């Protein structure tokens, strides 16, 4: 019984009499008699008994001592209701009478007293009950009325107690008051940080808590296709502020030396790429643990160098990383740069006051231009009250946690700028027109700043001639953007620094769709546009003041509040006209970064290009609403996945199974999917065992890579002799074989450019019409020697492939990529358009075990299970007997660990993943969907390099790169064409 039940029962049985008997154990009796001898009574014979019965209510007395034993207790219990006193020698009439009397009173109590849960009227006989007795005590008999009244009052009090607790929370009006609301918001984002656009998103999106943030997953309205259309023809907006920015400062050569340990030239351009280093382009690299290329990758990052200032080797670098990557990347950067010295944030006032000031501003609205001194005083006063300030940036971080690290040896400083910079991504060919429409280059301030001590940054900049000419140049380039037809025309990764006016001032009254105005702009000048498209933005124009910490802070602190702005608007003479002069606070330094679209492959090139908009914190909503008013679609996390899928780019962390973040992601996803699977009743679940799907919720890449390595190693000699050798050798990949092998190395994803190019050329059908055969000449043609030499380097690798289904079929994730048999290919050649081969259904021999276990849960499952008979096709193979023994061994080993069998899923030690089905598995799909750009099913995934090469070797040139794809919930194989795109 649970504790609550025991308590209830105790309460109920409180008044019931317990059995009255003496303790049963004889030793006890003896000891008690001794006690009696020790303490002789007053001389009377009946004394001991008297003592025993001196308690008139024996049961009640005992209750007080041991409340748990009171009342009717189920079954016999030792010393049950026994007196602790000794057993008397004689029984006298008086004692007996007393015992009777005691019993009577005990019984009386049991009969009279109701259990506590009953009300007064419940104790009345049925015929005396009346309607609504509990409500109206006057319906009770007079003698009970008083008691009932008292009980009723008590009940009311109890009720009011609960109410009192509720009343602690304030009225809705009070709760919704601005300060209190902010406090509540701050409390709610203690665990998961909110982005600045959180409230906007929360009203329109399904929010998910991920990576320590609250992020919009997908909109609540239907817009999947609309979002796709926006991406391909107009503009889709996303808030990517959750990306973490890490700032590195130091001398250029030292920074490069430190960072070179993290990357490798083999995987593409590094941090030192000339274009990126100049600050004109944004670069992206794959980061590895220091000196551990290629075995220990961390993940992809993008980086941005601040353009050089004249005569200085001091450089600034921003590295943008996904939040799941940051926890791995930051320590790595620290070790590489030898920055272990944490720089504590400078004393509190610097950190606290700006925010306080920023918040105190709206409170004293009447002051148009508050003097800093007075503000500070006010903020002090305010600080005594509850600190109802909106958290800007990463407010959940403790004040004392360091955000900056300095190296004593080489002078490099690492700053963690997480949530300091707002990043919006505009995807789509028209994103530049949206930007041009929304933003306006800052107007200079004509009036000479009267007060030299002006706290705003813009007037100071205006006084500097050089800065103003730079600003003019930047504004010119920004205006040229109008004339561009598509965002993709610009060189990828172009950076443009700019200072803009507050976009709220030019907010249209109605939502409009920003359209390009090419004609109008063509008049401007053709050659400048050409130059921009060819060369990108000249270096000085990439400079922006957003790089300066002080300017960022200044801008954030001096933002005009929405309320203030509206007040100013209302004072304008002509309603709806633009504010003039523009308030001085409304100049924001921003950075525009072009995002490259689809870079790989031949079709749809540069699809999904766009701009990233980098803003100082606090200005998020000020830019968001104006952007939304330009008719953009808003996408969530879901859309960014689709974006990368259409771009055929791996999506972090989903498609980085070899990175720590990717592994974590896989674990989480498996748990989530398994949970969802288990929520269905067993009869309504897919039985994945019957579908021959070994791991429907995760991809055991390591096992796959290992198995293929063994297949290739052992079958190396045979591959030359027979064409079907691989079909033979894969049968040998039993768990036994794996256990023999040396401690396996970890699998990696192939990122070596040269190797990828070679692979890509190999898996292309050489006789295809549209293919240019130029590059094949340079590369060695596929042959056994070339393959073995390739495999010696990359045997444990996976390679990222793009799979397209020429006929039917919509791939889902975790779909299997399998090798077609020669018969399949022949069938494909004969009749184009037929689906594909079918997988014979498998037998689920775990089902019977689960059933049996259900019947007698005490008995452990006996290992006498018939082994999974291999398909008839396999039976005639040489190693059939070998396989059989293995197969029969496998279930035995499972049965021992069959503690958590789930119907329809393989228990944990998985069987051979490669050769589980009739077609040999070489890989899995990680993203797959019907692609709206291609009009057929498309998928992205990984295949084992060894498996792929083995397949390619045996395929004729006509069918190069043809694989089979099978969804986990289907038995139908579909033909698919794989491409390795570099």
């Amino acid at each position, binding site marked *: 019984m649970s504790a609550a039940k025991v308590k209830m029962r105790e309460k109920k049985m409180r008044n019931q009499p317990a059995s*009255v*008997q003496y303790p049963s154990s004889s030793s006890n009796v003896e000891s008690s008699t001794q006690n009696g001898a020790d303490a002789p009574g007053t001389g009377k014979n009946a004394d001991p008994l008297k003592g025993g019965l001196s308690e008139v209510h024996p049961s009640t007395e005992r209750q007080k001592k041991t409340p748990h034993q009171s009342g009717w207790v189920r079954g016999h219990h030792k010393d049950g209701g026994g007196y602790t006193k000794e*057993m008397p020698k004689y*029984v006298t009439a008086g004692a007996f009478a007393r015992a009777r009397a005691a019993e009577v*009173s005990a019984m009386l109590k049991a009969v009279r007293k109701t259990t506590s849960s009953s009300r007064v009227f419940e104790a009345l006989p049925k015929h005396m009950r009346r309607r609504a007795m509990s409500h109206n005590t006057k319906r009770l008999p007079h003698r009970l009325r008083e008691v009932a009244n008292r009980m009723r009052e008590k009940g009311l009090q109890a009720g009011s107690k609960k109410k009192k607790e509720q009343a602690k929370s304030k009225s809705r009006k009070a709760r919704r008051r601005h300060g209190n609301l902010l406090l509540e918001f701050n409390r709610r984002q203690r665990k998961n940080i909110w982005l600045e656009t959180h409230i906007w998103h929360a009203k329109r999106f399904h929010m998910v808590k991920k990576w320590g943030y609250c992020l919009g997953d997908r909109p609540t309205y239907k817009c999947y296709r609309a979002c796709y259309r926006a991406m391909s023809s107009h503009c889709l907006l996303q808030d990517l502020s959750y990306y973490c920015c890490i700032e590195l400062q130091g001398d250029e050569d030292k920074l490069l030396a430190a960072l070179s340990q993290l990357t490798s030239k083999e995987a593409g351009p590094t941090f030192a790429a000339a274009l990126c280093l100049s600050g004109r382009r944004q670069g992206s690299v794959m980061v590895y643990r220091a000196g551990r290329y290629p075995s220990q990758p961390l993940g992809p990052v993008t980086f941005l160098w601040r353009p050089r200032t004249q005569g200085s080797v001091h450089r600034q670098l921003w590295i943008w990383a996904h939040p799941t990557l940051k926890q791995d990347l930051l320590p790595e950067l620290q070790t590489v740069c030898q920055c272990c010295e944490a720089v504590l944030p400078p004393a509190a006032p610097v950190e606290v006051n700006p925010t306080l000031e920023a918040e105190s501003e709206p409170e004293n609205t009447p002051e148009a231009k508050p003097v800093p001194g007075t503000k500070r005083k006010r903020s002090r006063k305010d600080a005594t009250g509850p600190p109802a300030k909106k958290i800007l940036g990463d407010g959940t971080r403790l004040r004392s946690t360091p955000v900056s690290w300095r190296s004593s040896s080489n002078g490099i400083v690492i700053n963690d700028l997480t949530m300091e910079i707002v990043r919006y991504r505009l995807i789509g060919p028209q994103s530049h027109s949206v930007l041009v429409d929304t933003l306006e280059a800052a107007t200079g301030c004509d009036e000479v700043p009267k007060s030299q001590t002006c706290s705003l940054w813009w007037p100071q900049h205006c006084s500097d001639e050089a800065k103003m000419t730079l600003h003019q140049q930047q504004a010119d380039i920004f205006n040229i953007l109008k004339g561009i037809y598509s965002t993709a025309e610009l060189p990828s990764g172009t950076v443009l620094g700019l200072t803009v006016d507050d976009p709220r001032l030019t907010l249209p009254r109605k939502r409009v769709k920003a359209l390009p105005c090419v004609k109008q702009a063509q008049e401007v000048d053709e050659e400048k546009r050409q130059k921009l498209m060819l060369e990108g933005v000249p270096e000085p124009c990439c400079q922006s003041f957003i790089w300066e910490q002080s300017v960022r802070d200044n801008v954030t602190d001096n933002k005009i509040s929405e309320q203030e702005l509206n007040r100013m608007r209302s004072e304008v003479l002509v309603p709806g006209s633009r504010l003039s002069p523009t308030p001085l606070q409304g100049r924001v330094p921003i950075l525009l970064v072009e995002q490259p679209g689809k870079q790989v492959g031949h079709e749809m090139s540069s699809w999904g290009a766009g701009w990233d908009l980098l803003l100082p914190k606090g200005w998020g909503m000020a830019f968001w609403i104006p952007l939304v008013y330009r008719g953009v679609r808003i996408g969530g996390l879901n859309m960014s996945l689709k974006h990368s899928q259409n771009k055929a780019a791996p999506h972090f962390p989903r498609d980085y199974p070899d990175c720590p973040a990717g592994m974590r992601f896989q674990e989480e996803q498996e748990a989530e999917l398994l949970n969802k699977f288990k929520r269905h009743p067993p009869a309504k679940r897919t039985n994945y065992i019957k579908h021959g799907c070994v791991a429907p919720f995760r991809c055991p890449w390591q096992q796959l890579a290992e198995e293929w390595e063994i297949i290739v190693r052992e079958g190396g000699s045979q591959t030359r002799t027979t064409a079907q050798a691989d079909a033979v050798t894969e049968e040998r990949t039993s768990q036994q074989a794996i256990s023999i092998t040396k401690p396996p190395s970890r699998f990696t994803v192939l990122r070596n450019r040269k190797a990828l190019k070679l692979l890509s050329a190999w898996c292309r059908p050489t006789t295809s019409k549209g293919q240019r055969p130029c590059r094949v000449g340079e590369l060695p043609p596929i042959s056994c020697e070339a393959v073995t030499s390739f495999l010696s380097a990359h045997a444990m690798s996976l390679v990222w492939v793009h799979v397209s289904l020429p006929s039917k079929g919509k791939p889902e994730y975790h779909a299997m990529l399998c090798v077609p048999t020669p018969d399949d290919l022949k069938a494909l050649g004969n009749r184009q358009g037929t689906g594909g081969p079918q997988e014979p259904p498998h037998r689920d021999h775990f089902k019977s075990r689960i059933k049996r276990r259900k019947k007698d849960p005490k008995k452990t499952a006996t290992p006498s299970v018939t082994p999974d008979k291999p398909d008839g096709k396999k039976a005639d193979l040489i190693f059939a007997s070998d396989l059989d023994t293995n197969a029969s061994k496998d279930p035995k080993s499972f049965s021992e660990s069959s503690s958590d069998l789930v119907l329809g899923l393989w228990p944990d030690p998985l069987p051979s993943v490669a050769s589980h089905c009739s077609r040999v598995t070489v890989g899995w799909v990680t993203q797959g969907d019907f692609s709206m750009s291609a009009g057929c099913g498309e998928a992205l995934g990984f295949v084992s390099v060894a498996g792929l090469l083995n397949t390619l070797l045996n395929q004729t040139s006509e069918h190069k790169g043809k694989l089979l794809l099978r969804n986990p919930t289907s038995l139908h194989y579909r033909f698919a064409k794989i491409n390795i795109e570099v």
Partner: protein
Amino acid sequence: MVRLKSRYLLCEVNVSDRSQLLLLDDRAIMVAVKAAVARTHGDYGAAMCSIRFCVKYLNAHTGIVFLRFPKSCYKLLWSALPFITSVETRGQKIPCFLNCLHVGGTIRTCQKFLIRYNTQQLHRMLPKCKSEEEKRQVRKAILSCSLTESKEAFEEDSESEEEEEEEE
């Protein structure tokens, strides 16, 4: 309305030597009843006796026992009770017989009957008393149980509840 119905038998254990009564034990009674039922009704009876049969209450001083039988077969089990001639407890065999005083559908009715019965017995005891001392004691006992017609049963109840709450 919908419940498992039982019959409660209020029995008196009659012994020749009153002091032997004090040795009694609910487990012993249970064993004795089961044995008697098994003897008279065989396996069928034993099986009947194994379901929901229980000794609810035993007072070793007065020899009062509450037995619970399932309602469906209480007559069968009851018929075995006269065959109990002795109860074995604490290594001793106490010769006794069970006298059924009352059969009730609820414990409550049995309790009510017992109150009446006990007071009646006490009243019968009074004239038979031999010494003045005894008489005094019995009278006192009678008084103590006749005074319990208190109307304040609920009051006490509520008071005790309040105390409890305070303790909590």
